[in-house]
């Protein structure tokens, strides 16, 4: 049997099993089946594969997927209606971070009471911070899951003084991550370290580099709240730019008024 004949035969057999053949072709197939052992074997195999497909039940997604979607939808609607409040929205992340932080403090407190040796205490604390940092970096680097990256940025809340590696990873997430929620979470984490000179510089620089309008508005709110007068020129530039969304321009204009 040539390859062409085999392909044609198998195609007819598939139609035969699907009940898609007319009476004439049905008879041709049945005659072939009665005299061709190979055709009969292919038919049996096709039956088994199709039966395996038909017996496959649909998979169920987890309930958290629905919750995550509802959160994203609420954020999107809020963004459309009240752009100025968007930055305040990820309260759930703040709450999660606060709970995480409280647990960590309790953990450390318990450990201190139990162990009086200061050297050991410091070594353990250092290890814990290293583990936290490692977890944060791994989660931030998870290209496949935006929710994991958001959680990674949230973990930064549990770090009292971040090193350059953490700050740079958060800055990269804030400026380059394809997901707005991740960028916002990274911005919020960086805001916590605003007192650090290099973090302040990163935030100011991002104002002109930022491509995501939602994050740009949130950035303006943060920098205005910190009374960063050095951004007035950039805000003026944004408020004059015809390519910029009206909501962003409004935010920039409000910022200028507050800082002037």
């Amino acid at each position, binding site marked *: 049997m040539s390859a062409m004949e085999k*392909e044609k035969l*198998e*195609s007819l057999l*598939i139609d035969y099993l699907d009940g898609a053949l007319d009476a004439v072709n049905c008879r041709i197939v049945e005659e072939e089946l009665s005299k061709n052992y190979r055709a009969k074997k*292919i038919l049996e*195999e*096709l039956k*088994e*594969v*199709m039966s*395996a*497909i038909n*017996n*496959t*039940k*649909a*998979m*169920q*997604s*987890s309930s*958290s*997927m*629905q919750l*995550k*979607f*509802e959160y*994203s*939808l609420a954020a*999107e*609607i809020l963004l*459309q209606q009240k752009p100025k409040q968007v930055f305040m929205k990820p309260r759930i992340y703040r709450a999660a971070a606060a709970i995480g932080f409280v647990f960590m403090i309790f953990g450390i407190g318990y450990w201190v009471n139990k162990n009086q040796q200061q050297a050991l205490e410091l070594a353990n604390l250092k290890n814990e911070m290293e583990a936290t940092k490692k977890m944060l970096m791994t989660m931030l680097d998870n*290209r*496949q*899951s*935006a*929710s994991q990256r958001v959680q990674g940025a949230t973990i930064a809340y549990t770090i009292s003084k971040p090193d350059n590696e953490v700050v740079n990873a958060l800055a990269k997430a804030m400026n380059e991550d394809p997901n707005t929620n991740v960028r916002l979470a990274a911005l919020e984490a960086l805001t916590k370290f605003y007192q650090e000179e290099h973090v302040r510089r990163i935030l100011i620089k991002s104002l002109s580099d930022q491509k995501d309008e939602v994050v740009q508005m949130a950035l303006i709110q943060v920098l205005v709240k910190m009374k960063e007068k050095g951004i007035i020129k950039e805000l003026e530039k944004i408020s004059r730019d015809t390519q910029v969304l009206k909501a962003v321009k409004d935010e920039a204009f409000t910022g200028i008024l507050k800082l002037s």
Partner: protein
Amino acid sequence: MTDESIMEAVKHGNLQQVSVLFERHHKPIFNFLAKMTMDRELAEDLTQNVFLRLMKYRNSYQEGKRFQSWLYQVARNVFSDHYQMNKNKYSKSMDVEKLKDSIEEKNETLDQTEREILLHKSMARLANEDRELLVLTRFEQMKYEEVAAIMETTVANIKVKVHRAIAKLREHYFELEKIN
């Protein structure tokens, strides 16, 4: 209300209506992506991305176009973008390990579970285009006309490709059965 009229409302700014579309379509989209990626957790993330993209690019929806076809086009693009970004990982291995738990929990007998794992292993051996065609026509049970609309091609072309894909699947299935 039809999907199309809801989508038109979304396009005109009524974003709350996206939740109705999510409720109606997230399960088949999730199943499509789970079979394409062979990874349940990843499929959940990508499903989320499909509906986020629907909101983001709502203005690109052409009024009068069948919503389901457009949604699957979005889902195909989401998968394709993900695949391009992780090409090296997929070329090295595509297994069903990340689906095993889900397969085991929904099947009642060991034989059913083994058959389904064998089937998914065979599906994993197919090229993306073949796997996609089988997921849509055989697992999601879409008509050739619907798939032709999604892929913007003719019904005859889809039928030929689906038959070739089934033939390849059959060969992989019985090859793997021999090894097992």
